[in-house]
């Protein structure tokens, strides 16, 4: 095994995350290469230093405060405006009319198929995804990105609670492969696309 290869594997070697065969190869190399042996010693020192850098104890009230906040969040009813009977009737009527109108529009839209705005959206989307695919990026991430759009900024994790379900093509790892400039460019392009939509 060459020195460059050994040095790439040293971190996993220290963590015991290598196969027995790879481990043996590295150990053999280390016995006859003082430079790699020294590099290993330095890495062990780095790892030990980080491990000893110290952790903190949560505050004594952390748990109780968290539970209290959970209780408050759950028990506080959604604030409803106090209005008179006449106004309540008027608002309820408007709501009923609104819901009926929305239902009618939805049904007629589904009969017609996607409207011009939808078509534009999907065309733009597909075009943009194709362009990025040509650049070697995985277009499947766009679903996540679009789901994650909140107000005027992009939240790169669409579902912060579903990460164990995300596969390797999720947006997070993809962004990690981009440089800051590339990420900024992607962000700007997406924002522009969203504004158009």
């Amino acid at each position, binding site marked *: 095994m060459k020195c460059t290869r050994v040095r790439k594997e040293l971190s996993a070697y220290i963590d015991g*995350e290598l196969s027995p065969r790879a481990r043996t190869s590295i150990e053999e190399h280390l016995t006859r290469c003082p430079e790699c042996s020294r590099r290993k010693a*330095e*890495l062990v020192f780095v790892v030990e230093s980080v491990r000893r850098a*110290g952790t*903190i104890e*949560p505050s004594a009230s952390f748990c109780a405060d968290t539970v209290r906040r959970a209780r408050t969040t759950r028990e506080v009813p959604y604030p409803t405006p106090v209005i008179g009977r006449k106004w309540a009737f008027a608002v309820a009527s408007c709501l009923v009319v609104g819901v009926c109108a929305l239902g009618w529009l939805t049904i007629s839209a589904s009969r017609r198929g996607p409207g011009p705005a939808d078509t534009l959206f999907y065309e733009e989307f597909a075009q943009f995804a194709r362009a990025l695919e040509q650049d070697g990026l995985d277009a499947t991430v766009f679903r996540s990105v679009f789901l994650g759009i909140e107000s005027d900024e992009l939240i790169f994790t669409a579902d912060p*609670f579903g*990460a164990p379900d995300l596969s390797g093509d999720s947006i997070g790892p993809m962004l*990690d492969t981009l440089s800051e400039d590339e990420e900024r460019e992607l962000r700007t392009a997406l924002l522009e696309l969203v504004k158009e939509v």
Partner: protein
Amino acid sequence: MVGRDGELALILKTKNGDLEAFGELVRTHQSLVVNFCYGMLANREDAEDLAQETFLRAFSAIKNYKPRAKFSTWLLTIAKNLTLNFLRNKRRRGERTEPRRWADGENDPIAALPATNPRPDEALLRKERAQWVHGAMQELSDTHQSIVILRDFEGMTYEEIANVMGCRKGTVKSRLSRAREQLREILLTRDVASEHGATAAQQGEAS
């Protein structure tokens, strides 16, 4: 400390709105989550705020939790996303991230440790070393820093880290290797590090 079955029972109770069960889950995992956030932010107040937010988000979304992932992994995934967004927003607003040093005893993780060696020069050395290491970690990218913390603070396996970070195990391996290499370069080339570095090499060669 509750076992896996006990934890699942607590999760089920929490899903039914049992706050006592939720409290037990918080007690079991608070140190893990607070220390992850603290490793990323080096500020107790921000770390505890984000850790609390993590638990509250978990509480509201606990119906989405699927037991095939470890509960701790799921919590750390939420904590990781919250801290990365927090840091990103902070930078976007042009705020400088807090320097990773501890000016007072309250925030000093070394002062909070039980004194295994009462010699003041030893305690000072340990404190200096911790500040030195945290300073170096600040120079890593957020992702690299998260991976180092998950591995070396939280003791997670590569597989578990991959689940938290949403990437492949091989990616964890290469990123951790790069992050440690960067730390090695920073720690062993700084002036302040010279004596530690020399000791490191000696200690390592002796081992």
